[in-house]
């Protein structure tokens, strides 16, 4: 048996219960509404640089594929504000006249993601409010990353070049000194220069010869290293492009991203359910806390008979009852019920001051 009071509670505030049912889905729609979003993708072929175990940017793990190593390095860079600002400037979505705060805000809002789609394939995805901007951002990410890699290689190679040049100078000085020592020894012992002579087997002479040979090898090794560094320095842009080659340039999206059915229908429906829950909780709360007498059923347990019920007398018709007009009339004519009661006798006036 359904409680009449519960039904009365529901219908008494029906319009109030309808508010969450309408407002909550609308609120969800408003909060989840997004402008059209366009997505551009660029695919990059990634390989480990030849003759160098490490990629140009970041550290590599032997347990990860080249693409995974590069994705880690790229995502690390994308988490920095400076790299994002570089991307924004490269993409041309901020101008030189923009304030640093504007540039930073634009850079933070850019939606960019990098993921490994194969052992050597890396996909860069950029989303923006227009197809042109999405494409520009995706391209800018590749370009900025390549530039960053080139700069890293050049910086590293320049540092090595300086080191090897310095070491080579010292090694050549040592070699010159040892050659001078050898020449001095031969001037003092000319017979040692003849390999058939026993003087050529002198231990001091053999030690000087060995030192010169070793220093020659050191110098040769340094020269070789310096040549490698020079080669690396000179070929840095090319090698970076080779190890991070654009396979598919950033595409220009022709249509905005499709909104998922979950977002389009599921979230408003969840909002509706939440609104229903709020309404139900409100009804239950009002029902449980309402200890007033509303119907004859509420008088059960009281050992006094119900004589009757007097209807709520209000001015205006049924239409005015549930409209602001009804509330206004009720406020204006607060004594309406009492005047109606007095009018039953035909008059609401008495002969004031006079006896019967």
């Amino acid at each position: 048996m359904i409680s009449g009071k519960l039904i009365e509670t529901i219908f008494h505030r029906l319009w109030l219960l309808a508010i969450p049912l309408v407002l909550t889905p609308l609120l969800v729609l408003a909060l989840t509404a997004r402008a059209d979003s366009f997505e551009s993708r660029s695919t990059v072929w990634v390989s480990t640089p030849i003759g160098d175990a490490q990629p140009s940017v970041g550290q590599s793990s032997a347990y990860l594929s080249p693409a995974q190593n590069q994705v880690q390095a790229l995502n690390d860079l994308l988490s920095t504000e400076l790299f994002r600002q570089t991307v924004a400037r490269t993409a041309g979505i901020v101008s030189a006249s923009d304030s640093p705060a504007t540039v930073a805000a634009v850079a933070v809002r850019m939606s960019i993601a990098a993921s490994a789609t194969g052992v050597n394939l890396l996909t860069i995805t950029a989303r923006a409010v227009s197809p042109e901007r999405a494409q520009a951002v995706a391209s800018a990410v590749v370009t900025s990353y390549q530039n960053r890699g080139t700069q890293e290689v050049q910086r590293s190679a320049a540092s090595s070049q300086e080191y090897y040049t310095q070491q080579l100078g010292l090694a050549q000085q040592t070699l010159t000194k040892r050659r001078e020592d050898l020449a001095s020894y031969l001037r003092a012992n000319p017979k040692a220069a003849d390999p058939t002579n026993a003087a050529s087997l002198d231990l001091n002479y053999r030690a000087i010869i060995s030192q010169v040979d070793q220093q020659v090898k050191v110098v040769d090794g340094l020269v070789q290293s310096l040549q490698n560094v020079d080669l690396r320095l000179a070929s840095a842009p090319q090698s970076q492009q080779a190890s991070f080659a654009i396979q598919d340039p950033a595409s220009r999206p022709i249509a905005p991203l499709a909104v998922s059915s979950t977002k389009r229908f599921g979230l408003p429906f969840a909002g509706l359910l939440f609104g229903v829950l709020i309404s139900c909780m409100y009804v239950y709360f009002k029902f449980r806390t309402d200890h007033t007498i509303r119907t004859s059923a509420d008088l059960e347990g009281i050992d006094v008979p119900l004589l009757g019920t007097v209807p709520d007398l209000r001015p205006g018709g049924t239409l005015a009852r549930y409209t602001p007009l009804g509330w206004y009339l009720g406020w204006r004519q607060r004594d309406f019920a009492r005047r109606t009661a007095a009018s039953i006798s035909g008059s609401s006036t008495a002969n004031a001051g006079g006896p019967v």
Partner: protein
Amino acid sequence: MATATEPKARLDLKEALREIHIMAGLDNTSSSTPQKRKPLAIGVTSATFGDGKTTVAIALAASLSEDFAADVTLVDADFHTHSVGREYGLQGEDGLSEVLAGTRPLEAVTHRVARAKMSVITAGSTPADPARMARSQHLTDLIENMKSANEYVVIDLPAGLHSMNTPVLAKRCDGVVVVVRAGHTTKQDLERLLHLLKDSNVLGIVVNRQSSSVPAWVKRTLNIKN
């Protein structure tokens, strides 16, 4: 008599009061041998202010006067609100308190309602000691005096939970009608009031200002009682 042009609110009220007449045993027209019945003093009270006891008292007195063509006196014994006098344009007039104080005779404070067999006695000025006045033998005599001149004496009593004179005054009445306001009076308040009126003859309860927002078809479908 109700006419076709009579406002719906008044018709509804009169129908509700006729039910109260029957349920409270005030209707003697069904008797096969009509005879003049014993005059009755009916008190009307409620738990708190604003429940509509004065409205019900006025309506009850007026309907008894009209339906049974009986002499009815409506007495305002609520010295807190003086509502009856205000409704009939008798503000500031002497009334019950002056009669009980012995400064005015009953006839001098009884006002006849125009075009009706109904009289009104206002509360008068607020007495200094209403409790003593309520317990006085003078009040009992006064009520008997009014009953001798009328078939019904309807007394608008103070709100029961706001004045402890109510149980005393209620005992002076032949029956008491308790008014509860739908959606306002709590069951606890009603039970407390009825406990205070345990020595009085409570005729029954009238639910005032009842309204329902539930459509009739819903009530029929769910078998919900009013």
